[in-house]
């Protein structure tokens, strides 16, 4: 048996899986666990489409080995909404038409969630630099920045 047994927590659930040593966390999420919300756009950590939050830190899951997930807490896009209630970021992305093709959207939502967790009232520039690790080729980022600004207002209760 060449697989590595890994125990981890994903979106609050205990999850166990077997993976090969060269498989990334992105491979595991998509190919073994059926969590396909994280996308592979480059596999080199340049596009951010595979962004997940690992122990409170934003990471590219293509740059984390599956085996490295042992004992850690991982948040993915699949865990962002609460039941039928969308997270304010999800709702504002829809309201502001902040997605066109939508391929980069899960990654942007995870990056924006991480940004607002550490800075609930970011300036436009802080949002732009906070999201600079995520590529979007469709929108020109304008509506994404506005959606994050609006969601931040809602989350602050302004």
């Amino acid at each position: 048996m060449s697989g590595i047994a890994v125990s981890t927590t994903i979106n609050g659930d205990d999850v166990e899986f077997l993976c090969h040593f060269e498989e990334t966390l992105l491979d595991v999420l998509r190919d073994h666990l059926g969590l396909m919300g994280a996308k592979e756009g480059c596999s080199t950590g340049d596009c951010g489409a595979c962004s997940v939050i690992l122990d409170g830190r934003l990471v590219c899951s293509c740059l984390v080995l599956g085996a490295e997930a042992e004992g850690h807490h991982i948040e993915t896009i699949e865990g962002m909404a609460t039941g039928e209630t969308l997270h304010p970021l999800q709702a504002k992305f829809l309201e502001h038409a902040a997605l066109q093709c939508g391929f980069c959207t899960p990654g942007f939502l995870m990056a924006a969630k991480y940004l607002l967790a550490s800075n609930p009232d970011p300036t436009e520039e802080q949002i732009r630099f906070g999201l600079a690790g995520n590529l979007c080729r469709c929108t020109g980022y304008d509506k994404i920045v506005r959606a994050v600004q609006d969601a931040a207002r809602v989350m602050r209760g302004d």
Partner: protein
Amino acid sequence: MGFDPSYAARTFTSVGTRPIRPDGVDKVTGRARYGADFNMPGQLVGRILRSPHAHARISGIDASKAKALKGVKAVITAADLPDLTNGNSDLHDILDNCMARKRALYDGHAVAAVAAIDARTARRALDLIEVDYEVLAHVTDVDEAMKSSAPLLHDTVFTGGVEPKPTKASNITNRTQYGHGDVEVGFKEADVVIERSFKTEQTHQGYIEPHACVASVNPDGTCEMWVCTQGHFVYRQQCAELLGLDVSKLRVTSSEIGGGFGGKTHIWAEPIALALSRRAGRPVKLVMSREEVFRASGPTSATSIDVKIGARSDGTITAASATLRYSCGPYTGPWAMLGAMTSFACYDLKNVKTVGYEVLVNRPKTAAYRAPSAPMAAFAVESVIDELAQKIGINPVEFRIKNAAKEGTKSSYGPVFGPIGIGPTLEAAQRHPHMNAPLGKNQGRGMACGFWFNFGGQTCTDLNIGADGTVTLTVGTVDVGGSRASLSLVAAEELGIPYAQVQTVVADTGTLGYNDMTDGSRGTFSSSMATISAARNAIGVMRDRAARMWDIHVDDVAWEDGHAKAVGGKHDNLSPLSVKDIAAAAAKTGGPIAGHSELVADGAGVSFATHICDVEVDPDTGATKILRYTVVQDAGKAVHPAYVEGQYQGGAAQGIGWALNEEYVYGEDGCLQNPGFLDYRVPVCSDLPMIDTQILEIPNPNHPYGVRGVGETSIVPPLAAVANAVSNAVGIRMTHIPMSPPRILAALEADRRAH
């Protein structure tokens, strides 16, 4: 009764609002399924072996070791894709590009492929395939490739469009010419003539989703394919022809598409996936890596363009000419032709001449990229327009307004324009506060105009009324950026019912008639026309059903506000019937209620835009910062304004990346040196400001609601707008795109030496 597509003014209820898109929740929760998000039972993993050489003869391929590896289920080469193209040279080029037959023609050209039980086995199998290459001389630069001494890509190419027909083979496949009047006479009438040469480097569409498909070929000849594409009906047609399959037996489903911008209008790996599946007898999933996407799909042309424009001192242009050389990769294309057609379309010119040359180089096959070929031509032309205005001493926007094309103008590419938006976009730009905002040190402002034809094409749409009165609209144009929302709005508008009552879906190729690609900005234009037609047909059916329910003549039934209404005094006692009422009775009045439409959406209205851009250039680093950006564009009628704005903003951002950073970098060996997003730098969020948009609505006379395509024109002006801004900031005319920091520093240094 025939469908009348003519524009008729009306007051809109749904069209022009901004509801949430029907596919939205799936896309913010990770549930939307893209090309790589689909699996089939028993599926294998496909991988492609690619040439490491820019140009090489393939003397032999020994795949015996790969085939012997445990877990490998199929290995194929060009021999497994026999030539069934029957003299169709376009199709043969597609076949040869999918897999090299005798020669590898660019770094990244596919030469063999494997299907194995998992990715690691497939990767190991690729390493075991032995290809015997005889390396040949290569050429990657468009100007170098035109020289008579250049290595030839094909010794069978003799330049077309030239009389007498050349007797010596060359890399120039075709020459095209457009224009009218006599430019030599026109230049003699000019007080000022500016002539300049420009270069633009090759860029990639840069969609974030790599190409992906799952193909399954059964022993009985039935096949299925799931694929990310801008046009699954076209993919089906071409794959069937290349593999000798019956079109009807190949059922293709388009996945959600993670960006295309023209790059997903061409088949690349899909025939390989089908051939692997046919050989292995199991479904095969084939997903390109980002490196493969850069090396073997996409790019637009690299260009070399000369422009000459003359004007009188009163600001009237007397003549304009351009020579445009566009790289095509190893196979010919229409790229320089499109550049030659679009170059001067914004202007009303008495004397104009453009000549285009299609040039073969050892680079990936050129693919369409959003208003293909127009941005580079606009860069060259709009740069000279700006310089000419400066030299004459006229404000650049006034100069453009004075010479702008208008209704009745004979366009530089032939047709006479109907009502068009170039003048109004210029006037709106002139009035815009951006135009007169103050600038600081090292800052500059630029403006530019752009044109794109737009396309209509074959379109088929079904509109089905459910038993509860809700509506399913089934379209065959892939939704690349919100068109399901737009088409739901159009169906709601025409039927007179709420948006929420309409659900739009994209059909697979087995459930709807043929549709052309979502290209040429046609998605919303053409499918909305077909939707209106289908809705009118459904209304006809519902009026008939209402007449039966009331037992009156159908001529006494009108359709108003989503209801059948009996007209005439004798029917005063009849309450209007809603869609729901009529649908509920359908089983007793004639069965299911539907409207269909099959049409060729002629009359795509041409589209114009004017952009304004402010930059600041750091003279120490050569880095350019975009400070402010404004897009003014004619939409005809903005169906869902938020997604129209999104198209304007997205095109501008792509153009800014092209203008400042993006380029294919080739080494002396002819190999691509930057096939990844780290070294091929597309704009990120912190590179850009908000992108201000202004939507003008000059109705397209050939669409019932006045809709024009909006997707492509927004990428046409930015190269020139940014170049004019940078040139104004540094006081030097920039003639080479992208204006990356090293190029700007070199220009500043050359200027210092010259003065």
